[in-house]
């Protein structure tokens, strides 16, 4: 035990000595070391910043999607086939209120279901006009899409839907454009010559991808369907599952119910498509992951170039210190001692560059988040990976020069001028 401790102490001292020598020789050529480190600093911070921006954007998009409701299932008209030729999504539309009723009555895995009747309209209010979309929905829709009203307003009720009431909830954007000063609640707006009463302003959801989610008017489905839309069919059905892990069950259930409702035979294909929020998320995350990887690998190239810089400077250093290597060998340094000495030097150089790179990237990310519309998210794992990677680069690119030093012949090294 005592002996073991002694050896450990000796090794520790030897390691300290190696570290001290490494630091000394790095600091001896301050300018050179700094320029060499710069390659790694830029590489490490580029990788971290790129990944942070990639992840930040992915998170932002995911948050936007989640704000639509995580249990959301969208049933939309499917593609019609005539003679085996698909005519594209939405080419047939046979959705009716009966489909909605059937799902509402018979499905067990769903919490809410709402028809969506969408009409693009010009809305007039308070002497101004605004072009937007009006969505005819049921009361379940508020829960499915997480809509709430601002103080002073209220949502429309089941009775408003049954009675085809001409009431409307307007989005923030619409409210700002029609009633820039003062409250919109209680005011009248005209849509295609029908007067609607504004009973509430919807709480803002912000930008969703490319779309302004607040540029919207919600009204009872029946009102929109019978007074504005015309025709036989509704546009879409929105459903929310009872919980996130029951989304798949709900999806299957809806499929069966819809096939029944549309009287499709065994061999007929669905004339509708069902998409869940999870699927959309998956698609988008896979896209952002690819983009992040692409950015990170471009940044990784600069890290590689930095590593080559380290190799270059270590080769110079080995040549410069040939005599020192000879002295060390003459007093009994083995090849491995010399190897470790130079490897440590390369590793110290690149790891300290890595730490500076991490600090630099942190400040750049803070800057990005506070001064630009981009969002960057820093994560511990990528910092750790960048740190370990910079150390690994030092060792990898330091190995060749170090081995060259270790393989020197002491006589030649001592004689080197």
């Amino acid at each position, binding site marked *: 035990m005592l002996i073991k401790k002694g050896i450990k102490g000796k090794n520790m001292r030897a390691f300290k000595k190696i570290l001290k020598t490494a630091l000394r020789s790095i600091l001896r050529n301050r300018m050179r070391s700094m320029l060499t480190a710069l390659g790694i600093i830029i590489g490490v911070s580029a990788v971290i910043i790129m990944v942070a921006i990639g992840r930040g954007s992915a998170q932002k998009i995911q948050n936007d999607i989640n704000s639509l409701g995580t249990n959301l299932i969208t049933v939309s008209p499917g593609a019609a086939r005539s003679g085996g030729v698909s005519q594209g999504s939405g080419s047939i539309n046979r959705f009716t209120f009966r489909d909605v009723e059937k799902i509402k009555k018979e499905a067990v895995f769903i919490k809410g279901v709402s028809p969506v009747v969408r009409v693009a309209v010009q809305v007039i209010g308070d002497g101004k006009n605004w072009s937007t979309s009006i969505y005819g929905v049921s009361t379940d829709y508020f829960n499915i899409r997480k809509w709430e009203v601002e103080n002073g307003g209220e949502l429309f009720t089941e009775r408003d839907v049954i009675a085809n009431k001409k009431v409307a909830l307007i989005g923030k954007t619409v409210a700002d454009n029609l009633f820039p000063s003062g409250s919109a609640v209680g005011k009248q707006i005209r849509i295609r010559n029908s007067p609607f009463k504004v009973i509430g302003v919807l709480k803002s959801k912000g930008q969703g991808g490319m779309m302004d989610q607040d540029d919207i008017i919600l009204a009872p489905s029946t009102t929109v369907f019978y007074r504005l839309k015309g025709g036989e069919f509704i546009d879409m059905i929105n459903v929310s599952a009872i919980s996130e892990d029951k989304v798949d069950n709900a999806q299957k259930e809806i499929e069966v119910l819809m096939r029944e409702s549309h009287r499709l035979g065994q061999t007929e294909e669905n004339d509708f498509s069902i998409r869940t929020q999870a699927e959309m998320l998956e698609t988008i995350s896979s896209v952002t992951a690819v983009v992040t990887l692409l950015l990170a690998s471009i940044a990784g190239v600069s890290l590689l170039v930095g590593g080559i810089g380290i190799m270059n400077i270590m080769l110079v250093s080995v040549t410069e210190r040939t005599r020192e290597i000879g*002295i060390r060998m003459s007093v009994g340094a083995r090849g491995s001692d010399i190897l470790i000495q130079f490897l440590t030097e390369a590793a110290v150089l690149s790891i300290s560059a890595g730490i500076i790179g991490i600090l630099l990237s942190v400040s750049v990310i803070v800057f990005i988040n506070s001064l630009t519309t981009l969002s960057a998210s820093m994560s511990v794992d990528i910092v750790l990976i960048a740190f370990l990677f910079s150390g690994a680069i030092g060792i990898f690119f330091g190995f060749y020069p170090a081995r060259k030093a270790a393989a020197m012949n002491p006589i030649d090294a001592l004689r080197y001028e």
Partner: protein
Amino acid sequence: MKNIIETKQLKKEYRLGNVIVHALRGIDLTIKEGEFAAIMGASGSGKSTLMNLLGCLDQSTSGEYFLDGCLVNRMSRNEYARIRNEKIGFVFQGFNLLSRTSIVENVELPLVYDHSERIKDSQAAAVEALSHVGLGDRLDHEPNQLSGGQQQRVAIARALVNNPAMILADEPTGNLDSKTSVDVMALFQQLNDQGITIILVTHEPDIALYAKRIVEMKDGLIICDMKIKNRKNAKDDLKALNNAEVSSVVEIVERNDAHKKRY
């Protein structure tokens, strides 16, 4: 007295293109403990090659070499490094100290690579070795702050620190002026009096005469090996040199005064 060095028909050949150069043609040399031997010879005589072989910096082509009782032919690089570390203290012509490194650390260097655990406190050992050569008061100095003679003393301290079987000095006075050379030789004589075996490689007969034995080489062979009967004493020579210096200064002043009086 045991043999520190014993070589039998030690040969070394180099290949230069298609020509084989016979640097050593068969050296039989025995050096006992406590000896102070000077190896002499013109350049090209093979003395540097012999010194490299004796110092375990190079391998012989054939023959046997016993160092401190062990056969040290055909060993691996690492074993050679261990032997250099434990058995040999080198002193070079160009001092070969690490620049911008304190002299204590310079002297400690062999102990950094010592895996035998013989010496526990390497710094104390280095300080002791430096005191031994008269530099105990300059531990924190760096080599470039010292004179040539002092630097060579540091190198000698480094050679001593591991308690080697012998000190191998390769032209130790080559870069020094004559007075400092005598000073360094005085130190070698003092160490030898304390029982340390010293092998000195030099081409200066004046310096070789401070040793106890001269081995002369020519064309890769030993042509002369003899004891020195009237060995020079470096300490006395140093005193004489100092006196000569003082008297010459007095002389200069007197001459100057005489010159002034005339006008």
